[in-house]
């Protein structure tokens, strides 16, 4: 374990990962109970270490820009699970009053101001946020999460060039989960490591084992430090894996079963748990508490969401304009 990563932090990160996992496992159950959740659910199962490791390196004032796979990012940043769950269910108590649903959850309370399900849209939006931070001489930075698939979008290139040119305090985090929909990495991307694209903008680019929260955190600390010092943007490619289909109706008929087994063994939560146990950093009792607490949080979130009514139909007309 790196020196800057003390035990308290490691446990916090473990707790957050477990919360994300439980939150999304509950979504899976709710989807199976026909009709309890409208629409597609894009889950971060297996990718928790990326969200948690990166965001643990940030301050509360730092901004994140997320994408369609946002639950992990938002929970890690401190979003209230109750309001998220209610939003995912389309309830009026949701963080966005039911206007968004899972795909574009914005939680300005925790500086997650913009989330877009348009693949590749995050980076230019994030460049705008980072520009505002630079313009106001703030000490804060912006982090944008996007997928390996998104890296093929033109908007990502434009944002990287602009950010590098203007030395914006912007950390690009590419979550390479080996898939873009049903297209595997090698079917959509022309290079081995997306991190290498940093060279194309004279920006540092490094990849990391995205299933190892400690390694993600360590790299994030050095990269965010770089951005925060005004040196310009940086790029992290976190290599991880999407454990479920793209949406709960996707039964991954196109996925090699051995690949799934391989990555199941690399579970970011299971491995950290084992390691902490082995090294005596945590006890079975403590682990049980983490489970119990996160289950309680998720129970509470679902109860809140269940109780929240659907929004009035006519309220659909609100919130387009600032009046």
């Amino acid at each position, binding site marked *: 374990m790196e020196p800057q990563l003390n035990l308290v932090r490691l446990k916090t990160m473990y707790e957050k990962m477990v919360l994300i996992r439980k939150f999304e496992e509950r979504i899976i159950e709710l989807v199976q109970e026909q009709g309890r959740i409208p629409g597609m659910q894009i889950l971060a199962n297996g990718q928790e270490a990326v969200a948690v490791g990166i965001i643990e390196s940030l301050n509360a004032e730092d901004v994140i820009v997320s994408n369609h796979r946002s639950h992990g990012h938002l929970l890690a940043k401190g979003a209230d699970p109750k309001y998220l769950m209610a939003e995912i269910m389309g309830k009026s108590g949701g963080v966005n009053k039911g206007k968004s*649903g899972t795909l574009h959850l914005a939680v300005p309370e925790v500086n997650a101001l913009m989330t877009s399900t348009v693949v590749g849209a995050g980076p230019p939006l994030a460049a705008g946020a980072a520009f505002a931070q630079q313009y106001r001489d703030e000490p804060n930075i912006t982090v944008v999460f996007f997928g390996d698939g998104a890296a093929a979008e033109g908007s990502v290139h434009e944002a990287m060039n602009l950010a590098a040119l203007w030395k914006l305090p912007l950390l690009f985090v590419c979550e390479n989960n080996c898939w873009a929909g049903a297209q595997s990495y090698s079917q959509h991307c022309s290079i081995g490591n997306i991190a290498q694209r940093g060279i194309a903008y004279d920006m540092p680019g490094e990849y990391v084992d995205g299933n190892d929260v400690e390694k993600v955190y360590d790299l994030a600390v050095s990269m965010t430090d770089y951005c925060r010092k005004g040196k310009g943007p940086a790029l992290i490619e976190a290599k991880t894996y999407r454990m479920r289909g793209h949406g709960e109706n996707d039964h991954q008929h196109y996925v090699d079963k051995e690949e799934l087994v391989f990555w199941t063994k690399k579970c970011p939560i299971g491995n950290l748990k084992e390691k902490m146990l082995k090294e005596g950093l945590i006890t079975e009792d403590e682990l049980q508490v983490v489970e119990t607490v996160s289950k309680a949080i998720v129970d509470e979130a679902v109860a809140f969401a269940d109780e929240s009514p659907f929004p009035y139909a006519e309220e*659909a007309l609100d919130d387009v304009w600032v009046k």
Partner: protein
Amino acid sequence: MAQLSFGQAVNNALDLAMSMDESIFLAGEGIGVSIHYDPNMPSHGLLEKYGPKRVKDTPVSEAAIAGLAVGASCMGLRPVVEIMFLPFITLATDMLVNHAGKLRYLSGGKSTFPLTVRVKAGVNFAAGCQHSHNLEAWLAHSPGLKVVFPSTPEDAKGLLLSAIFDPNPVIVIEEMGLYWGKGEVPEGDYRVPIGKARIAMPGKDCTLVCYGGATVTALEAAAILSKENIFLEIIDLRSLVPLDRDCLLNSVKKTGRLVVLHDATKFGGFGAEIAAIVAEDAFKFLKAPIKRVAAPDIPVPFSPTQEKFYKPSARMVVDAVKSITG
């Protein structure tokens, strides 16, 4: 004739076209290997049948997909590419509007662009406003592009085949909600001419113009109204560009009344063009104001209660028709 779902009808058209003409290839995100494993999805099974040379999964790059179509068509191929959902077509509009629609003109008629772009539309699948946004009015306002928007399995097949073999760029909008619904579909190389509307139901009291998924709503409304002895003439446009002006005008000349229906937002929607044509060219036959039934001018909300509210209903059509008849 065969009973096919709308999605199967599209699939059948693609399959047939590919078997007839080697210069046809498909490209798009998940056009080959898809997260859906469902024979009602338009390209189901075509990768297996035609191989990866002709069925090309692409990176997530809408501008490149459209550019691929423009460039390859100019070289004499017949690309059939897919932009997954209508709001993402924004990312391809430079290629489609400034290039597919204009490069022939700019060449003085020397270059040709026999390409087809398929794109999915729909406001009823709980995905929110970045997946659901009917932008057909944009495409219809872009010189050099043809635009079709079928509402039945038969037309889905017939219009797509016409689009693929048309020497011009054609945008084919497919209403996702219809993919699973079945209908009679002629076998073989069946074509529906681009630019011809369909009278989905003859009637005498009021003309109702619609297209795509809204046709279902229109038929529902007609059923309700017929019980009250009000008989709608439903025109399913099928093609927005070129538009079957004659069919439209003749119907209004007969009924004297017009209601336009679409799932897109009202302000600046395609319905405005229909209303304007009639107010210009059939004015003296009009016995009542022209009514438009369309979505409110807001993004598509996610919550089921609100999404339902957003989508124009048969009830709204009934009210609109009644407000100008009797």
